[in-house]
């Protein structure tokens, strides 16, 4: 049993996942700008809109995984930790795909959407997001020990 700490220690993955979300957002901005320019050149106004929507969809849906792990880590140290963790992460995954499918069906026949531009920007967003994940993972050092309570230093928590 964990002792009555005011706040159980978070797993060491938290800063890495926060960094993944941050860098992912930055890269998404870059991809959105480039995609919007290319979409605008190729297909005009609807190309710009499609590129922005596609990039946003890709990065938001890829980011939900990291976000759900961060949310689930708030339960770390409680008795429901394992169940809450996998419930939140897998539940978020399922909801994400249902929403993604619904968006696809809704967007498919809109006149202000260029399907090819949207498709390519989704792929660019997904691959860019994967690159960010691998980059951050390679650059980060995750300590082995996460939920061992050291003697109190009380400087930061």
């Amino acid at each position, binding site marked *: 049993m964990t002792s009555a700490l005011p706040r159980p220690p978070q*797993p060491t993955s938290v800063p890495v996942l926060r960094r993944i979300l941050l860098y992912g957002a930055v890269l998404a901005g870059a991809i959105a700008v480039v995609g919007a320019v290319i979409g605008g050149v190729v297909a005009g106004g609807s190309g710009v809109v499609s590129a922005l929507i596609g990039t946003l969809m890709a990065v938001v849906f890829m980011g939900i*995984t990291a976000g759900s792990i961060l949310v689930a880590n708030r339960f770390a140290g409680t008795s429901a930790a394992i169940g809450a963790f996998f419930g939140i992460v897998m539940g978020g*995954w399922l909801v994400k795909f249902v929403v*993604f499918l619904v968006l*696809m069906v809704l967007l498919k026949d809109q006149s202000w959407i260029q399907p090819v531009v949207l498709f390519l920007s989704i792929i660019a967003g997904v691959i860019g997001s994967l690159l960010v994940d691998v980059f951050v993972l390679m650059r980060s050092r*995750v300590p082995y020990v*996460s*939920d061992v309570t050291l003697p109190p230093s009380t400087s930061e928590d």
Partner: protein
Amino acid sequence: MLDATTVLAEINGNIATVGYGLAAIGPAIGVGIVVGKTIEGVARQPELAGQLQVLMYIGIAFTEALAFIGIATYFIFV
């Protein structure tokens, strides 16, 4: 009047909907393995939860990328 074989063999709608089913099989198996192995690892060594979570995240990200691209082909193949 239709006979039984015609009714059973008839396919309506767009064959591309089968594509989503195919696109879902691989990532479903993949994410199942990734998460299951993470549960196994955390159960054996709870203090490694942080590292295992990061690795699980990368595994899920790569696997779900397949699913996203598979579903997104709906835009160009239909």
